[in-house]
């Protein structure tokens, strides 16, 4: 930080998509030997700026300077030749090829026109050892964890470019130890004088790793500041342009009169999941806390009939129901927003409207097709109720932001007038603004009398909307917190197993 030498500089960048100014005269500077975090809500222009910096997009105004000289980038490969390398969230390497080939594809040393594999393997081994990786470089890339794959991707990017390294949400699918391992690598590169641009949703990681931060909002730069002059609240405030949208008053939620029991699970279990009993009342949110792998998602899948239970029974409004597959669950008035939205939730190529009506149509069956007017009306109603922001309801849902996609899935279930909604990590991968909106929506649904079961790894969030919290550990429900007992500290203790929960 002492030597403020700009490597890559963007001046007055403008990017226009149709009517929309995605970036409005944004300045950005990446200095050598510095980690520069780029923050902003989805739609703030973060990814557009990154795409311009790496050459995937061409700006409509402004200029890029590398080491003080103006450059024009045709595409990311061209950017790479200028020394700008990118590592994406989804590792963009070849899972089916060896580690060494992934490192050297396109620049394999050849001898008499033939690839010299021994030399590649040796060079790859040597290269990775500089990143603290001692692995069999001849093995397929897909045999290694995502963290290792990320490091291989970084090694390749740095090797090919070597001036600027753009890390586009590299930590999204890593666990804590893996994140640290990755950060160690990044710190080493920083010490070597690389300019590093770091994009993430995780604020704590920004404070952990970055030196400076640039915050974008609605396509404009809000600020560029050194992080040691800021705290989390400052950053969030700048990102949102308002104070944090959800407050932490757990006591306001609890203690009130409970409605009648809507859904009751008795002794539900499956191989590898201890039997559990749970009743969920009308107008109640039961939050689930627990680490990844504690059995949270398994419980949700069991409830919705994705996996069939070995024992136990389910009653809805006092009547026993059999749920052995999701269709039966839907018939019983259940809705499920799965954890992996893109894979299990949305139909990416179908329109917003079709995505919203699909559960209702499935419930109605083959012969009662919703006519187009009904569909438009339904989609319009829920899009308005949930504030789904889409240019029109006939656009493919995959083009929407994560937050809006999540709301589309919520709308889909609300359309069948459900009794019980299961939400698995409803705010994962969603920017802070949409995050707060989802939390508000959950609160509103609860007030409207829905029974909800919400899984989340964000403690503050669970605390903010839950009437009751179930804590899971080692594939077992180990504690239930109610009323005043709901507090992040208590949950952490229950997860860690340091304190038996109050009855």
């Amino acid at each position, binding site marked *: 930080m002492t030597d403020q030498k700009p490597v890559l500089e963007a001046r007055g960048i403008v990017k226009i998509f149709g009517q929309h100014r995605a970036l409005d005269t944004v300045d950005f500077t990446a200095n050598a030997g510095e980690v520069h975090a780029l923050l902003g809500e989805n739609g703030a222009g973060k990814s557009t700026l990154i795409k311009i910096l790496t050459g995937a997009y061409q700006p409509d105004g402004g200029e890029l300077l590398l080491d003080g000289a103006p450059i024009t980038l045709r595409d*990311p*490969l061209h950017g*790479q030749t200028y020394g700008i390398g990118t590592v994406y969230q989804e590792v*963009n*390497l*070849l*899972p*089916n*090829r060896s580690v060494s*080939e*992934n490192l050297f*594809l*396109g620049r*394999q040393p*050849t001898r008499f*026109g*033939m*690839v010299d*594999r021994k030399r590649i393997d040796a060079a790859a081994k040597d290269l990775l050892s500089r990143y603290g990786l001692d*692995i*069999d470089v*001849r*093995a*397929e890339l*897909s*045999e*290694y*964890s995502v963290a*290792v794959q990320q490091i291989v991707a970084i090694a*390749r990017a740095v090797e090919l470019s070597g001036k600027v390294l753009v890390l586009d949400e590299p930590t999204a699918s890593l666990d804590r130890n893996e994140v640290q391992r990755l950060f160690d690598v990044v710190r080493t590169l920083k010490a070597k004088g690389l300019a590093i641009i770091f994009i993430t949703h995780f604020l704590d990681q920004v404070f952990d790793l970055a030196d400076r931060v640039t915050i974008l909002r609605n396509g404009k730069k809000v600020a560029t500041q050194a992080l040691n002059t800021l705290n989390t609240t400052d950053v969030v405030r700048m990102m949102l342009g308002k104070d944090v949208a959800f407050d932490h008053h757990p006591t306001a939620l609890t203690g009130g009169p409970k409605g009648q029991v809507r859904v009751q699970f008795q002794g539900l279990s499956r191989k590898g999941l201890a039997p559990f009993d749970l009743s969920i009342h009308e107008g109640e949110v039961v939050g689930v806390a627990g680490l990844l792998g504690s059995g949270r998602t398994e419980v949700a899948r069991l409830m919705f009939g994705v996996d069939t239970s070995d024992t136990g029974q389910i009653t809805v409004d006092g009547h026993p129901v059999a749920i052995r597959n999701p269709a039966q669950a839907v018939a019983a008035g259940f809705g499920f927003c799965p954890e992996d939205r893109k894979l299990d939730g949305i139909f990416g190529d179908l329109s917003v409207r079709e995505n919203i009506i699909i559960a209702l149509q499935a419930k109605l069956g083959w012969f009662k097709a919703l006519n187009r007017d009904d569909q438009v009306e339904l989609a319009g109603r829920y899009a308005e109720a949930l504030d789904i922001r889409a240019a029109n309801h006939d656009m493919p849902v995959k083009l929407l932001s994560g937050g809006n996609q999540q709301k589309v899935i919520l709308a889909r279930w609300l359309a069948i007038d459900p009794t019980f909604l299961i939400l698995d990590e409803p705010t994962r991968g969603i920017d802070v603004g949409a995050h707060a909106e989802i939390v508000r929506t959950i609160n509103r649904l609860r007030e409207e009398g829905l029974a909800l079961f919400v899984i989340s790894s964000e403690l503050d969030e669970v605390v903010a909307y839950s009437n009751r919290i179930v804590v899971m550990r080692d594939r077992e429900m180990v504690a239930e917190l109610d009323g005043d007992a709901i507090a992040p500290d208590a949950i952490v203790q229950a997860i860690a197993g340091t304190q038996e929960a109050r009855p």
Partner: protein
Amino acid sequence: MNRSLRPLLATTLIFLFAYMLAVSQQPAMLSTRVLGNFLTDNAFLGIAAVGMTFVILSGGIDLSVGAVIGFTTVLVAVLIMWLQLHPLIAFAIALIVATGFGAVMGAAIHYLKVPSFIVTLAGMFLARGGASVLSPDSIGIEHPFFSAVQKSYILLPGGGRFTVVGMIMLAVFACAIILAHRTRFGSNVYALGGSETSAALMGVPVARTTISIYALSSFLAGLAGVVFSLYTSAGYSLNALGVELDAIAAVVIGGTLLTGGYGFVAGTFIGVMLQGLVQTYIVFDGTLSSWWTKIVVGVLLFMFILLQRLVFKAAPRRT
């Protein structure tokens, strides 16, 4: 061990086992004579299957192979018998035409973003139709060069004949193994099969590679056609009907993943030989209908698809 080697190993073992079984029933099958015929009879299929291997490795499919073989036999016959060209010139023209045909299909697949299935299906109809337009009837080829080639072979100990046609096939396999596993082009083919987006971001020339792959496949189909015409001394538009499917079967039995990215050229060789073995056994037995070949190939295919599922599901994880 590299897990993509496992299907290849399985194929090899099955081939050896099947061969031993066949020999125990028909001891006469263990001779260089049978071996020589093996190579000769399956040469055109083998050569076409090599091209198919590259296509499938890259994640595509080429349905035009059989039609291109048929077309080439007709074109060669027309050039030699009607236009009185020397066979070597006829071969060269036919190969250039076939290669260009493949390159156009590859370009259509890449630039128009149409699935290879559709493009090569169109290519199949075009080539087959084109062959019929050239000549709806079979044209016999009589030329001193043809008789000379057909008569030249290396006599193997035990009376087997290692024919020119068989040599061409082995040479094609040898070149293809080097091309696939030892050159940048080969790496690029595997890269496309792994992930086209990643490959593009990593600097693989996607357009050039795609076009080259289909050009190579059609070139080899053309070469298979040349071999077919040498083998049968005739050009006929309905030659090699359905050979593309036999080639796909050979590739998959040889351990190449139908979705691309994994596999070996050498496996395809064994896949072809395994099909040939079944056919030869049926000929030796004399009582079985030749359709049993199809049944056995079907069973083998099914087994290998299952096997690949298992191998790739049980992927080991390292940290």
